[in-house]
């Protein structure tokens, strides 16, 4: 295998870079050891925001992400959605009544950046106005401030970048891990050794340039060359709690016991509470939320929105931030900035690392990395990723028309347009092929059988569980119980799998949902887990199950 550029990592940075280079005509290959967005990107708060928090110590980051946010809204208009925020100002704040004013002034500054991202200027609210928006709020407040941000589906963002890269000649390999970086006699990069999941043999890839987009793994990847000292991260573990449904109208910012800000945010048809941020030096491939993290997040929100206590907590999202190393005393003041490291000076010409940064500015980060690579390769072509639509981003089909043309309801149409944009009718046309093409497979979303088939055929799905990142299969409260079997049958049909492989795929999906739900398997969600376990796992593993002693 021979390529000009090998990109390591299928998060937002890696897929963004592969797309950028491919569109400039560069021969590029991307290797991702799991599925797309399985790292920081898929575990993020999914906000294409400017990060008002960073205003205090990092104005550059704020502006950067506001500008790039504007571009992302254009090229992937179907995938983004507005999330209004509410910041209640409690009377316990140290500046008394002036606290509200200070917030007001602070967000005045943020408003200056908001035109870049099509933001609505903030508003100062009285207590009554605030309670009209969020009647569940409990506490003594001076009032509140609103602001607005944009949300995105980060998994699909990566998938669409990868698909567009392939459409422009790139090669993309998921479940392919880079296990070594090869160098020539002068230390220059000559390529990499990769191993596909489930295979023992290692393949050589020849490449003139290798770019490390390993997110939190970047330090380890750089360690495959002799100059690991150049990449220093301060990995911060971040947990979100996922609730069954939308619990608030606005995203609400609350204060945790240690004074940090924690939010409860409606996201698509669920709500998230996030996040924690603690130094993490454990195994990046084996992450799960601890009891303390779950309790910390719940308590932070429960004291202003006590009703949350009774809501159904279904799952967790856990990731590690790829924050660059700094000297901050407190995790939150670490820079969200990024750096493109050219390892030439350290003895490995042709090796680059794109470290740090944010989802919100993935595109411009990728652009700058691509610029550096192009200089080295002598490619003159310029970046077009801020102008050219991602697949499906060129138009938003009319929902009502879709419900007339196909036997689907309005909600299904809306969710489909959100995920596939202009390609929605291509997805729906597949429904005509089978008698059950328009049947709802996973009612939580809802996901149609034809959408599964479309994703399996056209969106680089290797494992059944990859469909979670493509069309949110199994993320609802039932954690794949209803949709899992049918999806596995459809997957087996499309891929010609035998019975054993089909069951393994279904177990793989259930296992990934189980792992995410496990830290919060209490109350109703435990009953759900009991159901899943009784329905599926008891019946299918019988011949190989050893009784416990």
């Amino acid at each position, binding site marked *: 295998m021979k390529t000009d550029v090998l990109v390591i990592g299928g998060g937002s940075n890696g897929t963004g870079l592969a797309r950028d280079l491919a569109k400039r005509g560069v021969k590029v290959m991307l290797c991702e050891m799991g599925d797309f967005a399985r790292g920081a990107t898929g575990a993020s708060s999914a906000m294409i925001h400017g990060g008002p928090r960073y205003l205090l110590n990092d104005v550059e980051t704020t502006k950067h992400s506001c500008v790039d946010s504007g571009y992302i809204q254009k090229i992937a208009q179907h995938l983004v959605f507005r999330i209004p925020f509410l910041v209640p100002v409690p009377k316990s704040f140290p500046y008394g009544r002036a606290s509200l004013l200070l917030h007001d002034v602070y967000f005045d500054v943020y408003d200056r950046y908001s035109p870049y991202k099509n933001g609505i200027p903030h508003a100062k609210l009285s207590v009554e106005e605030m309670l009209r928006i969020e009647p569940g709020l409990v506490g003594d407040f001076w009032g509140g401030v609103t602001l607005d941000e944009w949300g995105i589906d980060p998994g699909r963002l990566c998938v669409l970048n990868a698909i567009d890269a392939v459409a422009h000649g790139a090669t993309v390999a998921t479940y392919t891990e880079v296990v070594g970086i090869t160098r020539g006699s002068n230390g220059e990069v000559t390529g990499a050794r990769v191993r596909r999941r489930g295979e023992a043999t290692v393949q050589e890839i020849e490449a003139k340039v290798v770019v490390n987009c390993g997110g939190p793994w970047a330090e380890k990847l750089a360690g495959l060359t002799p100059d690991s000292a150049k990449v220093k991260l301060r990995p911060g573990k971040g947990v979100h709690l996922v609730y069954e449904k939308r619990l608030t109208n606005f995203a609400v910012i609350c204060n945790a016991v240690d004074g940090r800000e924690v939010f409860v945010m409606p996201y698509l048809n669920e709500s998230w509470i996030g996040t924690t941020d603690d130094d993490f030096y454990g195994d990046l491939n084996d992450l*799960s939320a*601890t*009891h303390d993290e*779950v309790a910390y997040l719940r308590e932070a929100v429960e004291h202003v929105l006590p009703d949350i206590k009774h809501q159904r907590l279904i799952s967790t999202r856990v990731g590690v931030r790829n924050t660059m190393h700094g000297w901050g005393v407190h995790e939150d003041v670490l820079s969200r900035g990024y750096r493109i490291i050219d390892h030439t000076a350290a003895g490995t010409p042709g090796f680059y690392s794109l470290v740090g940064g944010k989802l919100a500015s993935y595109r411009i980060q990728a652009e700058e990395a691509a610029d550096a690579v192009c200089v080295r390769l002598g490619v003159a072509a310029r970046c077009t990723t801020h102008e050219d639509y991602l697949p499906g981003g060129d138009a938003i089909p009319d929902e009502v028309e879709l419900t007339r043309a196909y036997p689907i309801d309005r909600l299904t149409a809306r969710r489909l347009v959100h995920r596939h944009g202009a390609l929605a009718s291509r997805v729906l046309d597949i429904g005509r092929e089978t*008698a*059950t093409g328009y*049947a709802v*497979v996973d009612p939580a979303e809802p996901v149609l*059988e034809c959408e599964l088939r479309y994703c399996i055929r056209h969106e680089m799905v290797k494992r059944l569980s990859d469909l979670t990142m493509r069309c949110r299969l199994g993320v609802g409260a039932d954690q794949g*119980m*209803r949709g899992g*079997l*049918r999806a596995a*049958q459809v997957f*087996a*049909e499309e891929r010609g799998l*035998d*019975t*054993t492989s*089909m069951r393994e795929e279904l*177990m793989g999906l*259930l*296992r990934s949902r*189980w*792992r995410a739900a*496990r*830290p*919060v*398997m*209490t*109350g109703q969600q*435990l*009953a759900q*887990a*009991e*159901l*899943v*376990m*009784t*329905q*599926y*796992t*008891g*019946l*299918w*593993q*019988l*011949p*190989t*199950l*050893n*009784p*416990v*002693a």
Partner: protein
Amino acid sequence: MFDVLVIGGGLAGVTAALEARACGARVALAQRSWGATAMSTGALDIAFAPGSPSEPTVARSIEGHIYAIAASRARHPYAVVGSGSALLAIADGMKLLSSALEPSGLTPRPWEAIQPNQPYVSSLGALVPAASALASHGPVTGGSVACVQLAGDTHFDAKHVAKAAVHDGRTSWGRALDIEPVMLRFDGSLPPIGLAQRLDDLGAAHELASELKAVVAGVSAVIMPPVLGLARHRETLATVQDAVGVPVIEALAHLPSVPGVRLQRALGQALRAAGVVLVGEVVGAETSGERVVAVQGKGGERLPAKAFVLASGRFISGGVVFDFGCREALFGLPTVTELGALEKDAPQNIVRADPRESHPLMTAGVQVNASMQPIVEGRIAFANLFAAGMVVGGFASRFALCADGVALATGVIAARGALA
């Protein structure tokens, strides 16, 4: 004043109530809603302890499985009451159940303790071992079998079911089976319960039967999705069966389960026929020293009885609750798992990372003695309180298919204890 008040209307509670009525007692039964029994597959599992590929256990007798389970799992109810007593109680429970289900046409398939489990086909596409099952299900043993696909049905995919059953026949049961999918034009696009209700109309059942007759000539049995009627299941099944002239077998159900709903309804009818007084949810208990005096109904009514049977199920039915600490919901009894007492803990420590593993939390329930009396710190909690079914700890149906066997055995034993 009742002799026995049973809390819970699943298989365990109903067994206890019917046994107590059979002994002539005045019995009341409290039920909040339908629980696990209404979701069950149609199979009646008594005992199956899976082996390993090198030591298959499909040929072992049901009795042998009961001994094996009791020997290897110290806290399993079969171990607590002893294998011999368990076997006798299960047989008595099965007899009660058979006559209770007779009017609904669900009479369980005959079974014998000295015989092995039989292969029943499930709509998940697996050939699972079961001791018995409700009448419409049946073991798949040989001959040429047709597996029926209704048009537009997304809950039952005949292609996959046939393929998987043949696979399991070969790999797990050592049998070469001949099962082929056949397509019917009959519209199956409703959800299972809706479809079953539609087939309660015998006109629709005849329509299905005549379509079926045309495509299944020459087969020795027919496998159907489990949707052959709900309230009039008996007639619907007979209609189809008569038209086809060979055994019509319903696959075991996954959720939502028509056979589970049929079973739960039939149990309700059996309770009424037996003269058990039905009360709704109970929300509290009144105790005095060593005895339970009464329970409180949801409307505040006081329901006194001489003895009580707790058959309130596990997590699904809310008989046991867990929120970083685990307890039985009504009396606040502490819980044990198959590994021992359950401390206040986070799920990470008592639910394992892979769903296929054995999870201690999933076996949580009250600890009992051989008379099914809940035990707290080594002492009998209340002299007149007995437990039955999934609310009893120390087992999960998932690791040794036995849920209904345990419900029957503990239901019978608890009722006898309550009347002693």
